[in-house]
């Protein structure tokens, strides 16, 4: 057994932390938050300085954690231009990979994932966006909701229905993944404003009105889209765990400083707040261990959905628990500090990439099927 990160990863984490501390000051983060503005300069800067390295998933994970620890909204914004890339990497044709992925890595393009629909959510297979095959193209009609990078991405990896199985129980079949470009005719998007948190990230509704997509933009096989996307969520969940742990560690850092200051000034601290600090720290540590263990399976091409869902579910609940507790401990001081922003940012962790409820369904199903999670 070995709980140490490699020297390379430690150095990388340190580098990301330094970058974040330099670039994500409270003042900067606060402005992007208030203005609901995507920090495109920071995205480019991070790419230039080699802070974003999607070639190594361990680095991605650790980078996300370190950035979100300094500011969740900016951290997520900077690391999300690749959102959905794994679907293309694993199942896209060489042509698609070359045409689309390369430019994302070069910082020239931004991509997005189009799965969720209005009225959809956890029930992915219930989606209503339809792609009708006509000759060598698909004609797509429907809409997508809560799409990250929705008004800034150049293209989307999108889940659509290409067939209608007679048996409703088989509706997972008949779904396919297409690459849809923003500049295709009939494509439209509306930015969603007034989000509680992660306001620097870009979120939108997409509208597809007879959008014509070349047949070559089909990712993998027709009818297998649902499985590709589930496979993707099993990967992306580990990154949400990293976001969550970044948030939780971030408020833990700040709460520790707050209490240290009280002690230093000879002010009253009281055991109750110390106990809460201990609970926060314990949960952060436990979350991180779950994430590392899940990652050690996942990044070794041996994904363990039970562990991944445990890591995502537990870490996201920890983020929101830690942020709430930090607000409680720091009170008025927290209200006028970064902590309130972390608090607002934290809640989405329990919702996106599989709600806490979905994680529990996955875990219990695996256990009752006899999975020993080993």
């Amino acid at each position, binding site marked *: 057994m070995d709980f140490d990160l490699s020297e390379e990863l430690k150095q990388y984490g340190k580098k990301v932390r330094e970058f974040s501390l330099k670039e994500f000051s409270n003042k900067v983060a606060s402005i992007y938050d208030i203005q609901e503005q995507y920090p495109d300069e920071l995205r480019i800067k991070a790419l230039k300085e080699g802070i974003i390295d999607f070639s190594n998933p361990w680095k991605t994970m650790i980078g996300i954690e370190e950035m979100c620890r300094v500011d969740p909204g900016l951290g997520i914004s900077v690391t999300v231009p690749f959102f959905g890339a794994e679907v293309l990497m694993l199942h896209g044709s060489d042509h698609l990979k070359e045409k689309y992925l390369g430019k994302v890595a070069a910082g020239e393009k931004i991509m997005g994932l189009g799965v969720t629909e209005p009225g959809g*959510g956890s029930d992915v297979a219930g989606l209503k966006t339809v792609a009708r095959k006509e000759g060598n193209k698909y004609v797509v009609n429907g809409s997508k909701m809560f799409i990250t990078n929705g008004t800034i991405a150049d293209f989307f990896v999108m889940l659509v229905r290409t067939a209608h199985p007679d048996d409703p129980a088989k509706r997972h079949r008949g779904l396919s993944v297409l690459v849809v470009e923003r500049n295709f005719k009939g494509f439209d998007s509306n930015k969603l404003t007034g989000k509680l948190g992660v306001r620097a990230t870009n979120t939108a509704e997409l509208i597809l009105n007879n959008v014509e997509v070349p047949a070559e933009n089909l990712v993998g096989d027709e009818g297998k889209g649902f499985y590709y996307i589930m496979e993707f969520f099993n990967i992306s969940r580990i990154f949400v765990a990293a976001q969550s742990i970044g948030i939780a560690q971030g408020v833990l850092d700040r709460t520790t400083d707050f209490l240290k200051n009280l002690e230093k000034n000879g002010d*009253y601290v*009281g*055991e109750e707040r110390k106990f809460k600090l201990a609970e926060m720290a314990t949960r952060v540590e436990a979350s991180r261990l779950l994430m590392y263990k899940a990652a050690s399976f996942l990044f070794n091409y041996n994904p363990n959905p039970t562990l991944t869902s445990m890591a995502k579910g537990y870490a996201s609940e920890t983020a929101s628990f830690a942020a709430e507790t930090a607000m409680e401990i720091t009170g008025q001081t927290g*209200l006028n500090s970064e902590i*309130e922003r972390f*608090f607002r940012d934290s809640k989405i962790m329990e919702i996106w990439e599989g709600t806490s409820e979905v994680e529990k369904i996955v875990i219990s199903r695996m256990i009752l099927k006899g999975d020993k999670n080993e």
Partner: protein
Amino acid sequence: MNEQAELMRSAAREFAEKYLKDVATKIEREGIGSDIKEKILQQGFLGATLSPDMGGAGLDPLSQRLMLFEFAKVSPSVSAYIFFHNDIVSKVLETRSDKESIRNLLEGKDNYGIYWPGLMEGAKTNSSEKVMERVINSSCNKTIGLFSDGKVYLVEGKNEPVKDFKPLGLRGMGICNFFPEKRVEYGKKEVLEDLLIKSSGDIASIFLGIAEGSLEKTMEYTRVRKTFNEPLKNYEPVAFKMAELESELEIMKYSLFSDEADEVRLLMLKNMSASFSKKATKYALQFHGGYGYLEDFGVEKFYRDSVALSAIIYRPVEDKRFLASKIYGDRSGFL
């Protein structure tokens, strides 16, 4: 419940329904409009608890609780606006029998901000007397403020918008920086602490109103929203949690909206409702999924407000210690 209380409850409910419901999100974005403030004054909600010889209606405590509750269900900001004026400002003015200020308040000439950094364990105190930063109530022309000398002042001056900052909660009240021009001492820090203790029932009413407002929306949403072809309410984890939350709310309301509620019970209810409102509004948001995260749906504000209000008027350390000492009949919980 007495008749006056019932009447006040209906009046507040009607008012909220008629004047606040449709503009609740607008209030969050742009603040409580002067038309609404005007109507609140006209209807006698603001200053209602002042004794008749001070020009108020001498509203009984139960009626005040019901009023704050009904407003908080729709707009926590409006409820807090009335609360601060009725429970803090009016009371401070009353202690000095400052009839003139009270008259100006009741005539709508003055609009008060609240400023008490350092009232709670560990909160930063203010050291500058040139500017009072982040005063609650963006459009105030006067402020009840706690200064670093440990004294409470009635401050006249000018407000200025705060740049690059959006408050977590009570956005309808908003915040401002306030530049004092004149100040008069109105007592020591303890005056405010005492008022916060005496307002326990009113604070609980706002918290429970927030909780009920968010749960009402969630009851409705979980009835109509389907996942996997079934309404959310058909799933155990949703239905059981909603039953649990509605139960806690109901049992607390029964106790809070009773003539018999004494000081200790109101303290208990303040503590319970503060944590309950956070729990309830968090589940409300969760059960709304992604939609809950958007301002337009009017759910996230309850979550924000419950936490912000806690940080502003609920003091986890002091309030719990006070209650524990009451229960033990001896100083407790100070280590």
